């Protein structure tokens, strides 16, 4: 299988997600199938094809540099599970 169990562990760690051993097996299987399919596509000779970074063919969508205040601080903080009157709060991220 092209995706190892270490790969699954690494990816779940990067995604900050926890899985049971059974789920990990299933993920390893699914991801391996995706990679296999990509390998199939890689069989095509694409040396003369420009890489496509975006599937949208529109270009240059801009807005002018104009400021606008949209929501109040109260609204901004409304859905936060942990907050003060003015700040969002998270568990301490720096250990001294």
């Amino acid at each position: 299988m092209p995706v190892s169990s270490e790969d699954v562990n690494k990816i779940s760690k990067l995604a900050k997600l926890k899985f049971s051993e059974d789920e990990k097996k299933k993920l390893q299987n699914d991801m391996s199938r995706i990679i296999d399919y990509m390998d199939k596509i890689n069989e095509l000779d694409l040396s003369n094809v420009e890489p496509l970074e975006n599937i949208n063919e529109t270009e240059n969508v801009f807005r002018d540099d104009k400021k606008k205040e949209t929501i109040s601080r109260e609204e901004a903080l409304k859905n936060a599970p942990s907050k003060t009157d003015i700040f969002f709060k998270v568990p301490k991220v720096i250990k001294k």
Partner: protein
Amino acid sequence: MQKNILEKYQPVIGLELHVQVNSESKIFCSCPSEFDAEPNTYVCPVCLGHPGTLPVLNKLPVELCIKTGLAMDCKINTKTAFARKNYFYPDLPKGYQITQYESPLCSDGYTEIYSKDIPLKKIRIKRIHLEEDAGKSIHDLSESETFLDFNRCGIPLIEIVTEPDLNSPEEVSLFLHKVKQTLEYLEVSDCNMEQGSLRCDVNISVKLKNGNTTGTKTEIKNLNSFKNINDAIDSEIKRQTGIIENGGKISFNTLNYDVKEKITVPLRSKEAENDYRYFSEPDLVYLNISDAQIEELKNSLPESSEEKILRFKKEYSLNDYESEILTGDKNIAEYFERTVNNIKIKNYASFKLAGNWIINEVLAILNEKNISIRNFKISPESLAKLLNPLIEEKISRTTAKEIFSSMPAEPGKFSDIEAIILEKDLLQVSDKTEIEEIIKKVLDENPNELLLLKSGKVKIMNFLTGEIMKKLKGKANPKIVTELFNKFIKK
């Protein structure tokens, strides 16, 4: 730094600069991009990373990024795209930063540095691209929690990446000053390091001077003052050469600089282990900048500092030193030119006088008070009002300095400097009979000094002229005093 170590090793340094762009609104939403607002007041569902929101690109940062590239002789890449840089950190609510990866807006440029100790040197610019800033974490308000302010989240940044062409802390400092000056001239950023609008990551390794293998590099993150950058580089060179001298090996490290201890501290390798899994940003379309737009931006570039120096030399007949000082800061150059515009007698002598007055008097006050010229209370128009009577020899330099030194305290009073001069009886005494009388009086009062002078003690002359000027309350035209004084002695 120990000299023998510096003789043996050469540091190899590359920089990554993050510059906050002068824009009214953020890069992907219309929230105000201001520095000093109340926490979490300039935020919206887009910059807070709420599901279902979409970014819309602000045109101004794109133009400013291209202008920066043009000023640094970069290739402007017409077709570029944005990418997602994925990592989890609380100050990044979306879980990814929108940046440019495969295709930066500008690449392969250079900027030149030189000083009296460092000969002209090209520092290659690898790339300049656009990205968004993250929020601010506040760690010291609580023991157990980190507080977050997302006002900064989404403020447009320009990232400038150099090739490892810098070889000493002095070169780094020169380069940073040059870049800062360029960005200020272009009005891309105010480059205020204290407010974090210019931040710097330093990549550094050392190699033996006579060898060609470069050592393993380390990266010092988030330095935000010229002094810290200089000290951090010094300390890191010491740390690396120390390890190598003792037979050790440098491991690739991300470091923080501890300002209090003045040492670079490696982050735990776990924290430094990055895997950003870049992929193209599906919510934003391609940027496709036409040659005509690039040409237009090129034509809109303001005069560079180099061009200004040349023009100041030609137009105002200033020397190298004067031109360089007066153009060092764009705002000082503007102050000088506005002063000159208000000078009545327009000739090289008066331009030089105005320039030197700004260099010697105005800049001295700015340095002493540690303020920028924008916060200087005397307007160029008021300064010209003071310099006009000096140029016309109506007042002496001493008098002008006296008025000038009292100006900052009473700015409103100097709408009519000429009235003050009359009111306080400050007009320069050019009346020869009056001056002659005083000279005679001083010589009569100091017969011994006069004898000494006549016997060849030339230094006593300063004392005697000082006495004369004192009696004339500094109002005399020194040229006339010296002239008459010499006539007296020869008698």
